[in-house]
């Protein structure tokens, strides 16, 4: 069953059909969350859950001519930004959480690479280089204009080059 059919059934038959979407994209969003939070698995899971809840809430706004996965990533992007904003209220707690829940240092290279990037740079960089989204797709997901996006990429790459 494809995504659009699941969405249709969720809206017209039963909300329980949405479980298929959660199972299908759970690990995908979690992986994106792990990368953006630099290995904080609890935070990655929370953001993924929030993204699913929001996507369900706004499911009736989903345009079936669009790609569902891309739409979901857009919602995840907003959930990520909100979660990070909320977490910054308590930097000390955040530091503790990261030290307690980050995964093994074997993955540290990429996490080090994006360490000094801003939230926007992190997500743009990750979507572009890890998930290979085009600039126009990233612009659609993040609502950052393409011209501005090039600046974000340039700044991000600049910061990364300094570290290598």
């Amino acid at each position, binding site marked *: 069953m494809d995504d659009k059919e699941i969405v249709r059934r969720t809206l017209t038959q039963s909300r329980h059909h949405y*479980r298929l979407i*959660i199972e299908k994209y759970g690990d995908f969003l979690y992986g994106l969350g792990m990368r953006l939070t630099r290995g904080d698995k609890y935070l990655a899971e929370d953001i993924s*859950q929030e993204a699913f*809840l929001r996507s369900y*809430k706004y499911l009736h706004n989903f345009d079936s001519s669009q790609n569902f996965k891309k739409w979901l990533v857009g919602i995840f992007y907003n959930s990520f930004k909100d979660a990070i904003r909320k977490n910054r209220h308590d930097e000390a707690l955040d530091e503790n959480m990261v030290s307690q829940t980050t995964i093994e240092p074997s993955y540290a290279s990429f996490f080090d690479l994006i360490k000094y990037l801003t939230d926007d740079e992190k997500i743009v960089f990750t979507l572009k*280089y*890890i998930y290979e989204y085009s600039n126009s797709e990233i612009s659609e997901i993040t609502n950052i204009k393409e011209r501005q996006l090039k600046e974000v990429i340039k700044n991000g790459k600049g910061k990364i080059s300094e570290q290598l």
Partner: protein
Amino acid sequence: MNSFEQIIENEKNTRYAMDDKSNFANLTLARMLAQKPSVLETYFKFALLYLLLAVALISAMPYFNNQLAHLETMLLLIPQFSPQSLFYVMITVLLLNSCLGGFMLKHKILST
């Protein structure tokens, strides 16, 4: 130090999976099913509904006045109220009703 391309390539090949995907799906679904309509949304829906009703009533006022006047004379139950004041009483009752409806929806006594 690894090169940029190497790090990206390694990261692309890294697969992340939740510890317990089934539990995650259950919890998410449970939270999803427990979602209540927001208070603002609920009150807005009711306010809109009653606004429409009020507009309909105002449009029907000439007929409404006549009917009430007949009732007044026929039944003598409400001689002290003019049709206008009765109309305002009705609107007040409807607004109170909308608040009650909103409250019931918020607390899931009613469902949308």
